């Protein structure tokens, strides 16, 4: 960049600022290193002009995601690294009960409003009805979801009556 006349008061020096235009198209990576997608839009607060969040463009036919800046861990010209694992990406993961049996796949993620806090997951398998597993029934979340031993997630098959 050529020499620039700077006019600032309480703001951070120019060297410590990021050119938002250069962030477009950069990767968004979760805490665990999962590449979520690429930045398509950057949203700025109309009142205080601060960065509010980014839109993430994902694979073909996947819905875009908007992530607020409170979930950002590091922002650079290479990528935005988040301080979370996105709970909405749990959709499609296998759900394994405490005995090691696969009881279905996540078809819906239940969150507290629009935050990343997980309330539970809706699970379904080929012949079963959808059933909810609350957060308290989940032991660990990783490549698949493992349930706690005391959680008894009974499959409800379509031939079972709805009570």
């Amino acid at each position, binding site marked *: 960049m050529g020499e620039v006349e700077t006019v600032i008061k309480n703001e951070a020096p120019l060297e410590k600022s990021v050119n938002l235009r250069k962030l477009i198209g950069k990767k968004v990576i979760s805490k665990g290193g999962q590449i979520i997608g690429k930045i398509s839009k950057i949203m700025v607060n109309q009142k205080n002009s601060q960065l509010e969040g980014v839109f993430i463009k994902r694979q073909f036919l996947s819905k875009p995601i908007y992530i607020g800046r409170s979930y950002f861990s590091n922002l650079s010209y290479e990528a935005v*690294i988040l301080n979370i694992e996105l709970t909405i990406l749990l959709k499609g993961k296998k759900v394994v009960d405490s005995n090691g*049996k696969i009881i279905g796949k996540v078809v819906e993620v239940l969150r507290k409003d629009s935050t990343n806090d997980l309330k539970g997951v809706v699970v379904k398998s080929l012949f079963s009805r959808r059933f909810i597993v609350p957060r308290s029934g989940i032991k660990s979340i990783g490549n698949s979801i493992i349930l706690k031993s005391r959680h008894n997630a009974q499959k409800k098959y379509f031939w079972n009556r709805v009570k």
Partner: protein
Amino acid sequence: MHKRNISGIELSNAISSEDILGKDVIDLNGTFIGVVERVMIDPKKLIFMGISVDKGFLKRGLTIGRNYIDRISTHAVFLKIKVTYEIKGKIVFDKDGTNLGTVSSIDLHGVRNEIKFIHVRISRFHSLFKRELVIPSEYIESIGENVILNVKKEQLTKIKEE
């Protein structure tokens, strides 16, 4: 027919090797590691030592000590660890999110499930001459679907020069 019993102890809750063989092995992260191929027993002390896991066609097997086994259930063997060998092939990003390359191999502390160094095969576009980076475990910030470091790419080169 009721079997005769001269065990001297209550064996009704015991499981046999046949109950373990062929079961899925699932790590702490919920990753399916493979299936139990063999059960290892100490020939002198006659105690259960661990299991040998078949990871699939053309993949090297893995032996897991009993200290790393959480429990054996009706359908699977659950581990209380994330198997560090599963890091192989994952992408390594620096603190800024720069793609450094992929994990080609790892060095462990003896036979424990603790990483000492990871060897990263550098992406072709990033370096023409250097082929591999050796990164100590203290520079690893998190391991999940991929690996994130707590240092920048430039700092890694400086550390290597020092």
